[in-house]
């Protein structure tokens, strides 16, 4: 049993977004973080200091560890932002403004 079967979910058709240029599938209603998790991606940020990888930590918008660049806009909290068809999601380096 997986989570979708357990919940009896019948989402609309999956759509495509890109993560660092690679195509991945996403479902309507998911956040950017949920779509990335479903694709097996758990980190999408490098810290400003040591350049260490980070992803979701709190899952509810409190910790700011999950910051990501979506369609060129950095510092979006992946655990809050809904994913939309065609989104270009990119690993965020540092402050997201480093070029």
């Amino acid at each position, binding site marked *: *049993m*997986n*989570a*979708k079967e*357990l*919940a*009896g*979910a*019948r*989402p*609309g058709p999956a759509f495509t977004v890109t993560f660092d240029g690679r195509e991945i599938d996403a*479902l*309507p*209603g*998911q*956040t950017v*973080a*949920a779509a990335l*998790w*479903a694709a097996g991606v*758990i*980190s999408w940020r490098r*810290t*400003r*200091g*040591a350049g*260490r*990888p*980070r*992803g*979701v*930590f*709190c*899952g*509810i*918008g*409190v*910790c*700011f*560890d999950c*910051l990501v660049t979506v369609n060129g806009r950095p510092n*979006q*909290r992946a*655990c*809050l*932002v*809904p994913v939309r068809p065609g989104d270009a999601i990119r690993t965020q380096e540092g402050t997201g403004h480093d070029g």
Partner: protein
Amino acid sequence: MADRPRLAVIGAGPAGLAAALAAAASGVRVTLVDSAPQAGGQFYRQPAAGLAARRSQAPHHHRRTWRRLRTGLDRQLAAGGVTHLADHHVWCVERHTDGFTVHALLGPAQEDGVTVDADAVVLATGGYEKVLPFPGWTLPGVVTAGGAQAMLKGGLVLPGRTVVVAGTGPLLLPVATGLAAAGARVAALVESADPKTLARHARVLSALPAKLAEGAGHAARLLRHRVPVLVGHVVVEAHGGERLDAVTVAALDAGGRVRPGTRRRIACGTLAVGHGMLPHTDLAATLGCRLDGVAVRVDDEQRTDVPGVWAAGEATGVGGADLALAEGHIAGRSAAARLTGRRSEARTWAAARSRAALRAFSAALDAVYAPPAHWAERITGDTLVCRCEEVPASAVRAAVGELGAGDVRTVKLLTRAGMGWCQGRMCAPAVAALAGCPPTPAGTPFARPVPLDVLAGQGPDARTGPPLDAPDGKDSHDD
């Protein structure tokens, strides 16, 4: 209709929903303001609407309660008793001579502002999970237990196939069983406390048979999913390069130190970890409400010490969804009684009796599920304490030892711990422990980061009434 009193309820979790429904039933017009796209809060978090799920994962009696709340809310929405503002992130509640203005930012982007006027306010903002640092806790794959639960309930996704659930507290049980039911292999549930000591609180437990049944249900599900349970154990380290690949667990002795020779490694892609909850108190603090330790102080009717402001649920102390419901109900009724000029007679309400029993129960849980005495000794020098500003424990220890910092604020000024995006919400307990001072709430000027143009639009000229400063010369918060 238009001159019915107006109550703003902030937070649509169990506490806020109960407050909104109780107040609306007494003839008060309620605006329910919540940052999530759907009502329910953490406990009744529903799968995102787009996922079209037909079943909730909640155990039976919680499903019934949720249906009752949902139906009540739908009726009030249709009748105009309650307005639900979803996707509204409140960054400040302002008190002025003739009421309150709630300032919110819209949607996930949180760039546009909106205000709501009200005669009184119920703060039902819940809490967030506390995680105490340990080596490796910043690796991708290490998530809060509640966060794993939130992603599962809301997005129907799992962080990985093999999970270890660890830390302390009653939340670990539903998280472990929830992940297992959704197809994860839960390699271990690692609890640092010894839940058997709960038996010492027999009198409190026997007053709440439903709670005992709930605990037994979780235990049965752990067995059914063959989840190995290690009590009196901790995760001492999380391992991995780019992502988590294993954890080391060890047994604790009676004093809370690791027993030599008990370390062992468990392979896993996910560690869901939590050490209890911390209340969200920033809105209360900016209003000038007094805090008790880290929670908002309230009286028998859930009133804060600022007139017109009530608080309920985890914001006033952590005790679970049932307690949040009881407190919310009391807050809503009490606020409605004051606003409509009726007597409240709070002592006679059934919710007041269940609140007393549930508070006693959560005090018993608190006593059992305290983090082990010597946890801070296990933070190595290079373990990051402040995740946002990447401040290692060695820097905090140097600020305390060599530079004499004795409180969280001085450590912050010397090391930047707590100055980052999360404003100390994640690191405050660890910094306090390393500085040897009692935990204080992470003091934030605003409950949310606020874009400058929104702030500029909210100055003294933006509306009639006094400026942003706290009323009555009260200094709003200590940060």
